[in-house]
């Protein structure tokens, strides 16, 4: 993909159609790649893709949902805005799931949809759907372009809104006749959105910083509870400096994996439903939650009233509406985290020097002990049956220290990946957290790889998820996108099965896929992928090495233990420290928690 000369693109003027103007706007925003499928109402744009010279690569996908998730994968791997395109009606509605996913996981995305011509809007015309109405609750903002003259301004605003503040999806719906209208194009330099002056987040409120520093200085059992905001805010380095200066344990939510290195001595990894015991216990026993870019999601907190019952709360975020939404904050600060975090660090250091650290030694020792005694673990079977966790460990070993990005679907495999992969940097872990979108993995991994062509990209998927979006293997082949799709195939909709086993009397209602799953090796070969299979640990090690060496689109069918469950687990509605687990020889006694 060629780099775009943004300055040149922004200074372009001239008479052109709305369709060409869309491409000029994309160039002006530095968009060098986008994903989509043509159709009637978006035909003028696709005609312009071929008719005019430009620097925007369009990637043809097989289903619009794939286009959306590819744009998301690209956005989260690179930090840039992802762009997807669909026609009106069914094309647009197929984007609804990725838009909702991007909304809940705060992913910067611009979705462009064709719309029926203006004079047909409201007549139930062919392929007409009120897509701005449909997506209203799941977008950061949306536009219906009524006049071609507005098009450059709207694109400028759409990208600005998608990328700044708390990022999110923006939809731009463009009637076909607007795409065909001619006008004099120029790209606006200035942005004026009266309802979106991000001014209120700039500047650091000294009183809040001081109050937060006071709480930290007087805390005996503080914990940093950090979320995906660290990654969106590009504040990982600042977070590491803060944690090391404060000597405070750090728990990273599912979305924040990599925001703080998993292998750092202060990391207690993931909290919540399938998080580590030591993360949940650390939170439960703490007297101060230093919450940064996280939102007290129910999968983290469990029963909200029982979450960190003895803790005061500091909450730093960029979105004012997250403050005291689920848990009341004692001190809060709205702002860019890479600015507010250093300010907090400076204030704490100025207040206490290092002497107070002694008071926290016992706390850190406790946390360390919980961690040593309760690692994520699983049993390897004498029979040699392949455990999904082993596959995660084998991948982790094989790609340790390389430039690697892990992507997942949603379910058991996602949780095993979260538990057993070591993620040591931001934008190396892409998963659907908020919406929990099965099928996210295949397309998101393809988009991530196209944004980061030199990285290894591995999609850890399940057999249920894989079958939801596997048609995008065709896209991977067409554009030679060398993602390794590792399917942990247990022949179940496994996470649902786990709930049925534990909470629904082992009634496995409509979750058994065994016997109906296509032969993934043959299927992948049919698409033209390298196709591998492993049924034992030895085979797993071998196919992982082969796949890594191949650097081509690859599918691996890992036939794993059908019965394996994800532990530990906070049952729905329970307090987050009340985790259930398998029986282990050195069972930690929960006294004192």
């Amino acid at each position, binding site marked *: 993909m060629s780099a775009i000369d943004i300055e040149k693109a922004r200074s372009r003027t001239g008479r052109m159609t709305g369709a060409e103007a869309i491409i000029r706007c994309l160039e002006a925003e530095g968009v060098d790649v986008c994903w989509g499928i043509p159709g009637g109402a978006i035909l003028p744009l696709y005609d312009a893709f071929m008719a005019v010279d430009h620097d925007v690569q369009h990637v043809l996908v097989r289903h619009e949902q794939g286009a959306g998730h590819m744009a998301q994968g690209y956005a989260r791997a690179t930090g840039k805005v992802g762009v997807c395109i669909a026609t009106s009606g069914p094309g647009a509605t197929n984007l609804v799931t990725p838009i909702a996913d991007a909304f809940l996981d705060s992913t910067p995305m611009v979705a462009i949809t064709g719309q029926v011509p203006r004079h047909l809007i409201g007549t139930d015309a062919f392929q007409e759907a009120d897509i701005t109405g449909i997506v*209203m609750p799941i977008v950061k903002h949306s536009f*219906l372009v009524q006049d071609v003259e507005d098009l450059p301004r709207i694109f400028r605003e759409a990208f600005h*809104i998608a990328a700044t503040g708390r990022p999110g999806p923006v939809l731009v719906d463009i009637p076909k006749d607007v795409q065909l209208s001619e006008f004099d194009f120029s790209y606006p330099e200035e942005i004026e959105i009266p*309802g979106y002056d991000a001014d209120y987040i700039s500047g650091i409120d000294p009183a809040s910083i001081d109050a937060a520093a006071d709480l930290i200085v007087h805390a005996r059992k503080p914990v940093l509870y950090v979320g995906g905001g660290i990654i969106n805010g590009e504040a990982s380095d600042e977070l590491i400096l803060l944690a090391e200066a404060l000597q405070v344990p750090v728990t990273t939510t599912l979305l924040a994996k990599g925001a703080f290195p998993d292998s750092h001595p202060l990391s207690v990894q993931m909290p919540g439903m399938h998080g580590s015991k030591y993360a949940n216990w650390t939170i439960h026993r703490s007297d101060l939650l230093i919450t940064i870019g996280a939102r007290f999601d129910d999968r983290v907190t469990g029963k909200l009233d029982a979450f960190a019952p003895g803790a005061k709360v500091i909450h730093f975020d960029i979105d*004012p509406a997250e*403050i*005291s939404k689920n848990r009341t904050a004692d001190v809060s600060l709205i702002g860019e985290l890479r600015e507010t975090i250093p300010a907090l660090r400076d204030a704490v250091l100025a207040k206490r020097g290092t002497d107070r650290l002694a008071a926290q030694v016992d706390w850190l020792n406790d946390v360390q002990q919980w961690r040593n005694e309760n690692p994520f673990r699983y049993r390897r079977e004498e029979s040699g049956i392949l455990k999904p966790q082993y596959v995660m460990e084998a991948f982790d070993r094989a790609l340790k220290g390389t430039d690697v990005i892990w992507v997942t679907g949603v379910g058991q495999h996602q949780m095993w990946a979260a538990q057993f992969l070591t993620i040591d940097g931001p934008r190396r872990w892409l998963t659907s957290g908020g919406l929990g979108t099965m099928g996210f993995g295949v397309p998101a991994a393809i988009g991530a790889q196209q944004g980061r062509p030199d990285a290894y990209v591995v999609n850890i998927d399940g057999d249920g998820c894989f079958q939801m979006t596997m048609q995008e293997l065709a896209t991977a082949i067409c554009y030679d996108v060398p993602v390794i799709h590792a399917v942990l195939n247990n022949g179940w909709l496994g996470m649902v099965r786990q709930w049925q086993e534990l909470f629904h009397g082992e009634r496995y209602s409509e979750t058994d896929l065994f016997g109906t799953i296509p032969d993934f090796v043959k299927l992948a070969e049919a698409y033209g992928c390298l196709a591998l299979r492993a049924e034992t640990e030895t085979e797993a090690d071998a196919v992982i090495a082969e796949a890594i060496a191949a650097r081509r689109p690859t599918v691996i069918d890992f036939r794993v233990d059908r019965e394996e469950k994800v532990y530990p687990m906070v049952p729905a509605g329970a307090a987050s420290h009340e985790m259930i687990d398998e029986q282990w020889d050195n069972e930690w006694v929960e006294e004192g928690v």
Partner: protein
Amino acid sequence: MSATNHHTLSALVENRPGVLSRVAGLFTRRGFNIDSLAVGPSERADRSVITIRVDCTHHSVEQVVKQLMKLIDVIDVIEISPESAIERELLLIKVKADADKRQEIMKLSEVFDARVVDVGATTLLLECVEHPDRLQALEELLAPYGIVEAVRTGRVAILRASAPDGESRTRLRVMG
């Protein structure tokens, strides 16, 4: 009605298609309960004002305001406290009024500054612009005569001319 759980918000919004559905949709999605909602032009052609009476039994008013502020088309939101504001609503009410009751009803309506805007053979049509609580009282007094039909606009509110400068319509800064 418990005054403490009900709040009047005044939102200055872009005068664009779809703004009302964005605001109404937000209330539905977040489970905020609307008691009344009135929308109309402001002093500027490109801006409208939406006055919302919201039931905050289950959510803090701060959360409602913050979520409203996140809408791009919402320029600012202020909470209008009853002490510092004038609140009004228009009631049009058709009351059963046979000839022998007309005088009685008209006398009653004078007390509420209601105007008779139409007279039928057996009904009177009254118009009243007042504080919503007063309209409620008027309706209750008219009920025994028989209310044929009644419509209300929903309340609109504005800060008093005598309110201190600090309470004028400036952008509400929500700092958590």
